[in-house]
Structure formats: C-alpha cells, structure tokens
C-alpha cells in the first residue's frame, strides 16, 4: 500500500473503532483489556490492582453507573449485542429478568463453574441458574439485614444508645414503630425516626417467607397477607409523622445523611459503605448497627455475569471467578462491608470477629454472619426488581399525601398485575 492509502485505511479503521463505541479489545502492548460494569460500591479497586500485578497481561478498567442506569444500559446493550463490558454486575432484583434469556450470557457451567458450586450458599447459586440449568452469574455478596442508627439522636430523645438495648427495643416491626413514636415526641424539628417508608417496607418484604411471586412465577403480592400487614404498619408510621419521606438511593436521601434528617435506616450490609460515604468522616462514631426487627432477612446482593458478545470471554470468566472467590470476598467485606455469599467465611474468625470502626466498633462480622445463617431465602420472580420499585412509588404516594394507604395499595396491585 502507498503511504497515503495506508493513512486513509488507518483513519477508516480508527473511525470504525470509534463507531463501535465502548467495545473492548486488545490494548496496546499486547495486554488484554477487560472492562467491568458495576453500580454502587463493590469495593474492587484494590482487588483490580492485585489481579493486574499477578497477571501483567491483563488491564482492567471499570465503569460505574447508578443502580437503575446500570441495569437499563445492560439491557439495551444486550439487545444490540454491542457495548457491553466484558463482565457485568447484576443485582438480585434483576437477575431473574436476565436469566430468562440465558443465551445472551456465557454459561459458567461450560467453563468449570460446576466445580465451584460449593463455594456459595445454595440459594445464591440457584438464584442465577436458568430454568434449563445454565449458570449465568457468580454470586458476589448477599445483603443480609440490620438496622443502622444514630446513637446521639436516640440518646437525646431519651432512648438507649447501646446496641443490645436498642435491639431489645424492637423485637418486632410493631415495636420498632412504637419506639419511633416515643422518639418523635422528643425529637428536634426536622429529624424523623426513619428515612422513608419504601426502605422500611423493603426490609419487611425481605423477611417474609413468600415475596411478590409464588414459585410458579405468578404475581401473588395482592393476596400476600404478610406484605399487606407490613404495608399497613409502615403507612401507620408515615401517618404518625415518623418518616423523613426521602426515597432511598436518591440525592436528597444522600443529603439526609449529611444533615442528620433521620435516626434509623434499614441496613443491608452494602448500605454501610453508602452511609460512610454520605455521612462523611464528621459522623464517625455517631452511627451504630444492631439487629433488625423480626430476625434475619435479605435485601439485595449481586452477581457477576459475562455477556456472550464480549471478545475476551475466557479471561473475563477467569476474572469473575477470582473476584467472587472466598478469599476476595473476605477482603471486600473488610474494605466495603459487603457480606460474603460463601458460607465458608461465616466460620472464619477473621470475618466473625471483625469490628467496623466507623460504626462505633460494631461487631458487624458477628451481626451479619449470624443473620446470614438464619436467613430463609425467598423466591424472587422474574420482575421482582420492578415490583420493588412500584411498591416504593406506592408508598411515596402516601408520604406525599396524594393517596391514602388503601387507594395506593389497590393501585399498586393493579399496576403490577397488568
């Protein structure tokens, strides 16, 4: 080729590369470039460095979006089979939607996943297993459930601040609301008992034996008495002025931590990293963690999947397996507080004895592993994530005074059964 034609060819190639968007490929210097799509805080930054040090031929870059953006982008990219990262994280609320089309993902069982099966809690493994037995995801963390609370605010309102005594305040959610009414009498203006109805309700739903679906994937939330009772209880709490009326994972909710607008927040393990990020160093030691009303429960937790459209499937599978191995999950637990999904660690003294200095040295290792052992996994149907969003909107309608509890509940049930 003449130089000019060569330059032209290169330009065309460059344009083609640009047009193909954020596709991954081989980076300069013969390194394999792996991208990983995440949402929120997975605590992986240090692990990437460690992996790259051990594998000089691999370069990892991550892109992090918000929870809902991440999952919508993933769907759009799967639809066009382009633009996906080599590894994509998927939350529990969405995994069923994606495992309904398992052919879009690499089946880990064909890549040696079957041998790793015993790493995870059995229900975690089954959570990402498609109906025809394809494994599309390796489990990262499970949510677990606890309550995070502000020691100083409780104390000022004449309630105990010690975590065992606080736990004794609320064996059930009813007691939790009763304690809230006591708190609210003496609370300073602008400070409420809990952050918002939707997050309390999510915790209650996460504890019921049956959730939004029955095992045949039929939506039965309309007839689920446990959830309706929880709904009524939270509506009562909202009407008694216990709610800051802030929707979780929104900018105003983040501000709520900074401004100290609420005294308690339901705390899956992943929530603690968020609290630490949002409340900041000046709130260190003010927050504490104790057990959740009604025993254990689960809210959230994620998986790592490898979309089939990726160019470096084998290396991506290898990295996903490494990131979700017990050793790495233990590190993530310590750095970001995410509760491991590998039961082997629940007996590991390094985990069980771990205390979190930010949360007033709360023994979160023991607290969360105890909760995880007690956990009774709930079956999640195909669109559990959407229904969780819809019930959150329904609770917001009550909080905003647009509808009363009954009207809003009826509209919610009609909406999700459409």
């Amino acid at each position, binding site marked *: 080729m003449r130089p000019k034609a060569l330059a032209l060819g290169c330009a065309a190639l460059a344009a083609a590369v640009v047009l193909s968007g954020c596709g991954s490929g081989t980076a300069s210097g013969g390194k394999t470039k792996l991208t990983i799509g995440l949402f929120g805080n997975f605590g992986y930054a240090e692990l990437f460095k460690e992996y790259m040090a051990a594998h000089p031929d691999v370069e990892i870059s991550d892109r992090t979006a918000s929870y*809902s953006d991440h999952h*919508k982008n993933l*769907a759009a990219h799967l639809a066009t089979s382009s633009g996906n990262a080599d590894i994509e994280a998927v939350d529990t609320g969405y995994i069923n939607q994606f495992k309904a089309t398992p052919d879009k993902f690499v089946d880990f069982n064909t890549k040696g996943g079957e041998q790793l099966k015993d790493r995870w809690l059995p229900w975690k493994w089954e959570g990402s297993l498609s109906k025809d037995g394809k494994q599309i995801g390796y489990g990262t963390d499970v949510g677990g459930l606890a309550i995070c609370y502000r020691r100083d605010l409780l104390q000022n309102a004449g309630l105990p601040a010690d975590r065992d005594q606080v736990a004794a305040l609320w064996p059930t959610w009813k007691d939790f609301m009763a304690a809230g009414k006591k708190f609210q009498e003496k609370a300073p203006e602008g400070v409420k008992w809990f952050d918002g109805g939707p997050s309390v309700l999510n915790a209650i739903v996460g504890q019921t034996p049956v959730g939004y679906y029955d095992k045949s994937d039929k939506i039965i939330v309309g007839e689920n008495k446990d959830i309706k009772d929880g709904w009524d209880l939270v509506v009562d709490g909202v009407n008694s002025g216990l709610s800051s009326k802030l*929707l979780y994972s929104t*900018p*105003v909710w983040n*501000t709520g931590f900074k401004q100290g*607008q609420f005294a308690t927040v339901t705390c899956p393990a992943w929530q603690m990293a968020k609290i630490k990020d949002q409340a900041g160093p000046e709130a260190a030691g003010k927050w504490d963690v104790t057990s959740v009303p009604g025993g254990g429960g689960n809210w959230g937790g994620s998986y790592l999947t490898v979309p089939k459209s990726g160019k470096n499937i084998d290396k991506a599978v290898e990295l996903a397996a490494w990131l979700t191995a017990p050793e790495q999950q233990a590190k993530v637990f310590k750095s970001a507080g995410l509760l491991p999904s590998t039961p082997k660690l629940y007996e590991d003294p390094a985990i069980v004895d771990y205390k979190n200095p930010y949360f007033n040295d709360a023994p979160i290792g023991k607290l969360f592993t105890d909760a995880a052992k007690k956990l009774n996994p709930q079956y999640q149907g195909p669109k559990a994530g959407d229904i969780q*969003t819809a019930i959150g*909107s329904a609770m917001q309608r009550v909080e905003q005074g647009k509808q009363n509890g009954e009207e809003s509940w009826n509209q919610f049930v009609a909406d999700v059964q459409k």
Partner: protein
Amino acid sequence: MAVIDKTTRRHRWDTRFAPYGYVAPYFLIFGVFGLFPLLYTVWVSLQQRNLIDADAARFVWFANYAQLLADPYFWNAMGNTLSLWLLTTVPQILLALWIAQLLNRKVRTRTLFRMGVILPNITSVAAVTIIFAQLFGRDFGLINWSLGLFGAGQIDWQAGTASSHIAIAVMVVWRWSGYHALIFLASMQAIPSSLYEAATLDGANGRQQFWRITVPLLRPQIIFSTIIATTGNMRLLAEPLLFNPGAAAATGGSDRQFQTAALYLYEQGFTKYEFGYSSAIAVVLAIATVIVAGLGYFVTKRIRTE
C-alpha cells in the same frame, strides 16, 4: 470526430447525473440515520417483542395500538406532554422576543450579552437538570428557602402535578430562550430603521412599535421557532427523567404526575422491555407532534400587520 462525440456525451452525462452525486451524501445519511430508523420503528411497533429477546418476536399487527389507545397511563402521559408543551413553548417564545428586544439596543459590551444568552443552551442538559432538581429540593432547595422568606410553606415540587410541571418548564425555558432570542435578534437587525422613524413621526410609542412593526415582521422567525420548540418540547425526556432520580426515575413521579410520552416510551422499552409497545408509543407521539406543530404553525401564521 468520435473522440469529440465521446467527450460531449461524457459532458452531458456529467451535467445530468453529477448533481445527484453531489446531493447523495445528504440523502444517504438521512436514509441511514433518519428514514431507516423511522420505518424500522413502525415495523417493530407491529410486533410483540421483548427488548433482549428479538428471536421470540411475533407479528401482532395493530394490537399494540389498540392496547395503547385504551391505556390510561398513556393518556396521562400525553396530557402531561401537552401541558408541558404549552408551559414551555409559549413562555419561551415570549421571553425570547423580550430578550431580543433588550439586546437590540445600543448598550455597551452587547456582544458579551449576546454571547451570554446562548450559554444555557450549550450547557449539558443532565447538568442543568441535576442543578435545578437541587434548587427545587423540598428540604434544602434554594427556591423553597427564598419562598420561605416571604412566609410561604415548603413546597414538595416533585410531588404535585402543577408544581412539577412548573419546575420542569422553568428548566426548559431557561435553557432554550436564549437560543430563540438570538434568532429573533438577527432578523430584528434586518428591519429597516426607516419604519421605526416613520412610526415615531406618526407618534407611535415604543410598545406600539414593538407589537405593530417588530413582531409582524418577525413572523417567519416566530413560525420557525415555534415549530422547532414544539418538536423539542413534545419529546422531553431528560428533564423529567433526571428530575426524579432513583430506581423509579422512568415513571416520572410517584403517581406519574410528570411522566411525558417520551418517558413512558422509555419506561415501556427499557424497564419493562416491551420493545414493540414502546415503538407504537413512538409512532403515535410522532404523529401527535406533527399535529401540534401544525397547530402552532396556524396560530403563528395569523400574526400580521394591520
């Protein structure tokens, strides 16, 4: 002789076909990025199709449209769209006229002002919306704080239908008025000053001159701006989406109080994966936009000199 024949023939071919070659790139690009997606959308709208499972798609012909016309949430979204269209387009044009009139005077550093009015327009819509969402915050928003100085209560801007529409309209008007003002300003400067001088001699004041001379002579630009603004404001997506962050962003508020048709399309397509249904919404919205733009055209066309 044969050689000359060949060149003349080539010349004739050249003059006949070359122009098509020159305009071809536009039509090629329009075909690939404009016409094809449009037809493809119509085609998809006739199917029952899951976003991430295209292989299982099947033709249902007009079932999506039948379902759509009976869908109360779609009509709610269309109502919000029209309300927002009215709340954005009319103030936008009036404000732009006023700004253009102000900028048309002999003031110092007027180039600076003229450049300044376009600034909101080149700002990223996401950034604008995030900032405005904070200004309109319930507990710590600047606007509620200012209202509080006058003794007004805390307004939960996102919660109400009217309040949320106003907040979103403010964002759009703020962003686009400067753009239209510059278009108006350019044609204002083309109006011969003799018209104003004659009017002044006849004793017309500034206000009369503005409404009787300036506005009628700006008619073509006002028509243009109205149509451009209409096509933009009928498919508002980013503003209502980012005004309500969180997992439920696509519903446009807890009771869909500010869910526009474009946002409903987004919800159906990208959270419910109803690709066919979502395409049907796109087609109906496009038709509605043409109708509303036509309406705007007929209203603005009636502007005339007496």
